């Protein structure tokens, strides 16, 4: 397993390793090879680098066509250019056909697109992909997890959507930590005053909030949700069962993402209060850290929201 800085390099490293392992994988890129940090992959395996030009709908269709022959194409680009520009192609020609196409969507969230601004920040993708039958959604929190998620995606049969941010996110998981097949990893277990559920690259902030809360005598559980809308939420429900307050944190619109998923699990299984911390409007340009803080993802704000919900 190679060393890498963040989710993008991890994606490219895993794709390369999959070729070395003899998998019939391809990188289908709508002018996104460089953004995917996959230039060395393209140079090393020119036949496995399928360049489609700035044409995302074409890239998804090409991947669908390739998958009918047994190939395992990974379409890599910015998450919104895939889910929004080529959304119908993802739905009808990959979802409905249940073809073995994998999508890696980066620049997810305001911190994923950071200084590029709204047109290159994507916080709507989960609402769409979660509504598509047959798709599995993997949201690795850091590079180590992304590497394993890509490997897992190649093993899973059928469409997979991998969500990643800027590639500069902090590493939270140890290199040898597995990518949880239960869809949840408890990172801090200080108590059951609240359960804070995180998805993707806000995890370091959630863990920091849990630590801050502990200092104030509020003992929470902080966990990473890495599979959204999965077939088996039993472990997630198990963690939710120990508390009367769940707080969700995600760099995504407040509708249709993690918070929506957890809200449904709550009302359908055990009605419990769910407070959602997420984006409620379009964001703006800015460096990831400052932007994330401004949008409510600072550990201080997360801790304050939890404390307020508990009346403390």
């Amino acid at each position: 397993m190679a060393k890498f800085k963040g989710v993008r390099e991890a994606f490219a490293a895993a794709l390369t390793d999959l070729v070395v392992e003899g998998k019939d994988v391809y990188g289908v890129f709508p002018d996104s090879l460089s953004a995917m940090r996959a230039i060395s992959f393209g140079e090393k395996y020119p036949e496995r680098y399928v360049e489609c030009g700035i044409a995302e709908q074409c890239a998804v269709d090409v991947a669908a066509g390739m998958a009918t022959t047994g190939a395992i194409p990974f379409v890599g680009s910015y998450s919104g250019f895939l889910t929004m520009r080529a959304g119908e192609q993802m739905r009808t020609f990959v979802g409905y056909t249940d073809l073995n196409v994998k999508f890696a969507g980066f620049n997810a969230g305001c911190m994923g697109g950071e200084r590029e601004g709204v047109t290159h920040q994507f916080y709507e993708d989960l609402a769409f992909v979660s509504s598509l039958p047959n798709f599995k959604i993997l949201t690795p929190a850091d590079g180590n997890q992304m590497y394993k998620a890509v490997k897992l995606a190649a093993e899973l049969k059928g469409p997979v959507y991998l969500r990643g941010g800027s590639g500069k996110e902090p590493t939270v998981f140890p290199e040898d930590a597995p990518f949880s097949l239960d869809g949840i990893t408890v990172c801090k277990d200080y108590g059951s005053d609240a359960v804070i559920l995180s998805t993707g690259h806000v995890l370091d902030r959630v863990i920091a909030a849990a630590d801050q809360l502990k200092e104030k005598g509020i003992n929470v559980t902080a966990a990473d949700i890495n599979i959204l809308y999965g077939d088996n939420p039993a472990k997630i429900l198990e963690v939710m069962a120990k508390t009367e307050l769940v707080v969700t944190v995600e760099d995504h619109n407040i509708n249709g993402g993690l918070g929506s998923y957890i809200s449904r699990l709550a009302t359908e299984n055990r009605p419990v209060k769910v407070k959602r911390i997420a984006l409620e409007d379009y964001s703006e340009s800015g460096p990831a850290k400052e932007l994330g803080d401004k949008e409510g993802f600072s550990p201080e704000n997360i801790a304050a929201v939890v404390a307020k919900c508990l009346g403390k």
Partner: protein
Amino acid sequence: MSIKKIPMRDGYGKALLELIAANPKVIALDADVAKSTRSIWVKEKFPNNFIDMGIAEQDLVGTAAGLAFGGMMPFTSTYAVFMAGRAWDEIRTTVCYNNLNVKIAGAHAGISVGPDGATHQALEDVAIMRVLPNMTVVVPCDAEETRKATLAGAAINGPFYVRFGREAVPVVTEESTPFELGKARTCREGSDVAVIANGAMLYESLEAAKILAEENISVEVIDLHTVKPIDVDAVVAAAKKCGCVVTAEEHQIFGGMGSAVAECLAQNYPVPQEFIGINDSFGESGQPQELMDAYNLNQSAIVAAVKKVIARK
């Protein structure tokens, strides 16, 4: 007794004619399916207020955005699956991010499109539209409510999505029935369970309530036509009054109105909820009513869900 049925799209066409008669800046655009969406009525009566963009949905939305910049009020229409699917990027970044005054109609939505099959059955459009800031999302229950919703969409400044089906559906509202964007409408008072529905499922919910009344189960039925912005007060009040909720919609459960209600309940007043909707599958060809039955979108499914959710109280 036979029930009067009218396709909701007739309400859309009627509203367009009323709007254009009053305001020549209203213009209808379609992508080669004007006959189906009823925007053809505009072409017939006000040919200068109609553009057929051909089979080019992204172009449809892009041109509408340009017209809005130019001071027009464009109403775009095509099948919901192609509108929300193929033109989502344009709707998000060009229309919603710029908060443009573009109105969008998703026609032939839901599984009741029937024989055309899965490629033409939009089951995700509400999820897709609901996640966009600045967007208003309305799912009316009959032709008259579609007419009122379309008129109400014209009265607000900003992006607006109205969704309707293909089939003739029972008439459940009259001209005098009140309609206010963003305000849920209580259609029937009850106390044991609140059934929150929209689209064609509202009629089914009202029928289910009658069946349940015979078993002494008192059902409140709420028409949640505006999915976004959601009427938090009405949803919470219903939950407080009844203690449990069933949502019913002709759309994927993930991301649709039921999910919006779950978010609202979980955040404000968590109570047990059961979900009637498409359960994470694609549709198929068939006659509309056959499909509604095959996918559990009918009165008996609502009756069963009500009993289940009451048992969870």
